[in-house]
């Protein structure tokens, strides 16, 4: 059972993208993203705050459906899921 994590923009620079991970159906969305992000401190810090919560501007999608970051811990990652983690940009 695998899921695919897609990072975008700066997250992608720091962590890569289209990462396939084994899932058992019991891993929550934040835990899975944390597990992947843990390989790069800067990448982890870009996505999560000191308390390990998603930074408030991070956009999370599961199979194209938006997941509120504050509600993500109740969401389990299932076989075949595609998870997207996106940082909006602000410049003009």
């Amino acid at each position, binding site marked *: 059972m695998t899921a695919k994590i897609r990072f*975008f*923009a700066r997250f992608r620079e720091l962590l890569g993208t289209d990462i396939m991970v084994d899932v058992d159906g019991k891993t929550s969305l934040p835990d899975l993203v944390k597990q992947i992000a843990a390989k790069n401190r800067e990448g982890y810090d870009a996505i999560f705050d000191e308390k390990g919560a998603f930074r*408030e*501007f991070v956009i999370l999608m599961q199979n194209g459906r938006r997941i509120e970051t504050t509600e993500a811990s109740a969401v389990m990652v299932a076989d075949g899921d595609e998870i997207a983690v996106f940082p909006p940009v602000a410049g003009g």
Partner: protein
Amino acid sequence: MMTVLSDRECERYKRQTMLFGEEGQERLKKAHIFVAGAGGLGSPVSIYLAVAGVGTITVVDKDTVDQSNLNRQILHGQADIGKKKVASAEEKLTALNPDIRVTVVDTTIDESNAARLVGGADGIVDAMDNYPTRYLLNDIALEKKIPLFHGAIRGFYGQATTIIPGKTACLRCVFPCAPPKEVFPVIGATPGVIGTIQANEVIRYILGTGDLLANRLLIWDGMCSRTEEIAVARNPRCPACGDEKSKKIPEKKQDNLNERKRR
């Protein structure tokens, strides 16, 4: 306004009236677009709207041209340093196309003047560099029921979406929280890509042709030359366009609202 095209205009727009006819060109001529910002995004947006023949373009910016702007803000050149960006913009846009009307305002867009500045424009282009002003433009677009053409960039990355009030997610549905403020790195080609996409959206909105970036967030990854899309949807609990407008705004976001929370 008379919308009959002059001989010069017919000649100028010959290669695009092949696409949408003189009728389409007249639509462009009748349109009035408000461009918020004359910087990295505002430059390509206003240039392409001007040369396409959008009849009235209003450009608002508060800044003065600085040397460090010139790697990306292609409305301005070495000789414009120290000039007001809107003065430089007016000069360049009029020189590119004297058959359109360019109006400029040298001011900071804020809650007190935004609705008046936008006036009767048919659409707002978001060429800003900060979310508080973007959220304000979003509110004005919702109020006036006119589209907001969003774009934003950083480094080699950019994003764009087109907000049609009542039909699509609004800016706050898509981005409920602003990313942190920073002096952002940027290569000029990035706002070139995103600003050109915004201009293309505006043109097709006016012409009523093709598929807009409605409920679609386009993401440009200039590091690997890839565009991707994220589907977005209205948030029924959105504090800006939600059903109840019950202002379920988290503490932190109050910062961005300034004094606007009592609206």
